[in-house]
């Protein structure tokens, strides 16, 4: 017969054993820990957009399309510029004619079925431009939904698509909350901004950053504390798009307004 004392002892032993995770029994090798600490990622590419400086010239979109071989007249683009016109009676009109490849040369705002809307100068409460591109999220939903491992994140944080591996199911196009993915009209596979991966690896900046005359777009390494982009992100008031989605976007904006979605 079991005594109360042995029952309590054994019950405590079993309870203790079940809450103890297996990992707690692992013996750490100090050399491996040191290697993990030192050989961790040294580069994390991030983007900084200053919406105050953007004038909507669209040179970034033109340069991106040519640099990355996106058919020039196809209605798809890896990056685009949006115009926001907020009127004094509280309406917000948004457009991006042809992804703003040829810039904004008219005050008429394309409102699809409502036609071209002209807003009088004195009715404008505020108006500005917002460049958009892939946010290269730290938690990329587009990568999570890929059923074949065609889209992935590199060690330096850029999300790429393997054109040979993509089966064109379109889950990632639907999964991206920022709408940056589309099908490439020539290769018929998912396509997205690569932060000009080929240029970054040659020590250059992205084509859109080099094309911007006003410094509205900047690219930098978040893990380098001396990088001018890192300094702005860590010391100034920056915001990201759709933070509530938990995607941890890595394109930071200066001067974002609440109308921007």
């Amino acid at each position, binding site marked *: 017969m079991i005594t109360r004392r042995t029952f309590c002892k054994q019950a405590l032993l079993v309870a203790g054993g079940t809450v103890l995770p297996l990992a707690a029994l692992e013996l750490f090798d100090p050399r491996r820990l040191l290697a993990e600490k030192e050989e961790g*990622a040294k580069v994390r590419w991030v983007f900084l957009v200053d*919406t*105050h*400086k*953007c*004038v*909507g*010239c*669209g*040179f970034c979109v*033109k*340069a991106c399309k*040519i*640099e*990355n*071989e996106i058919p020039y007249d196809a209605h798809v683009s890896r990056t685009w510029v949006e115009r926001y*016109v907020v009127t004094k009676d509280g309406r917000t009109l948004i457009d991006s004619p042809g992804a703003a490849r*040829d*810039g*904004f*040369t*008219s*005050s008429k705002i394309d409102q699809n079925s409502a036609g071209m809307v002209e807003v009088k*100068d004195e009715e*404008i409460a*505020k*108006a*500005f*431009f917002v460049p958009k591109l892939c946010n290269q999220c730290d938690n*990329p939903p587009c*990568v*999570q939904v890929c059923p074949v*491992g*065609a*889209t*992935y*994140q*590199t*060690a330096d944080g850029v999300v*790429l698509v*393997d*054109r*040979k*591996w993509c089966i064109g199911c379109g889950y990632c196009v639907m999964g991206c909350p920022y709408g940056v993915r589309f099908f490439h009209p020539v290769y018929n596979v998912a396509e997205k901004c*690569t932060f000009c*991966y*080929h*240029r970054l*690896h*040659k020590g*250059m900046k992205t*084509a859109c950053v*080099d*094309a911007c*005359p*006003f*410094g509205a777009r900047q690219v930098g390494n978040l893990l380098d504390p001396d990088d001018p982009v890192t300094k702005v992100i860590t010391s100034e008031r920056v915001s990201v798009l759709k933070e509530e989605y938990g995607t941890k976007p890595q394109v930071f904006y200066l001067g974002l*307004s609440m109308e921007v979605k």
Partner: protein
Amino acid sequence: MKNHVWRPLYIALALVAVGLVARYLLVPPDFGVHERGYMYGWHRKSNEKEWEAVRVKYRTGRSCIPCHRDKHDDIRNSPHAAISCENCHGALLDHPKDPVSLEINRSRSLCLRCHARLPYKASLRGSIKGINPETHYPQAECMMCHYPHNPKRPNPKREVRS
């Protein structure tokens, strides 16, 4: 045990073997979990090199200076100094080998990208000098009066053209 009992097991084992051989032949050896772990790093490693190998087309304005120093000096101290040569003249590619010459874009639409007046005071656009393209000499090329490399000067070719 009788043979007919074992036969389905052999078939099942053969199917598994065929599957394993097909997987070995079809999946590239570098396909697997890489730096970003199982959730984000599952890919064909050599694809990163394929993206790095994309040809650079825009080689930045610095590449133009050795041959076109006169143009560089022209634009350097003008309000247009920040505009990259390639924005108006096209991607450099392997110029002057390929293409031999780049475009000289004289279209109004190029200038209007910045200089069509839009009264957007919340952005830098509102403080750029602008025109209404429908009323400001709509038939004329901007270059007939304005010198694009230095808009503060009138176009030196102005008299010749008119």
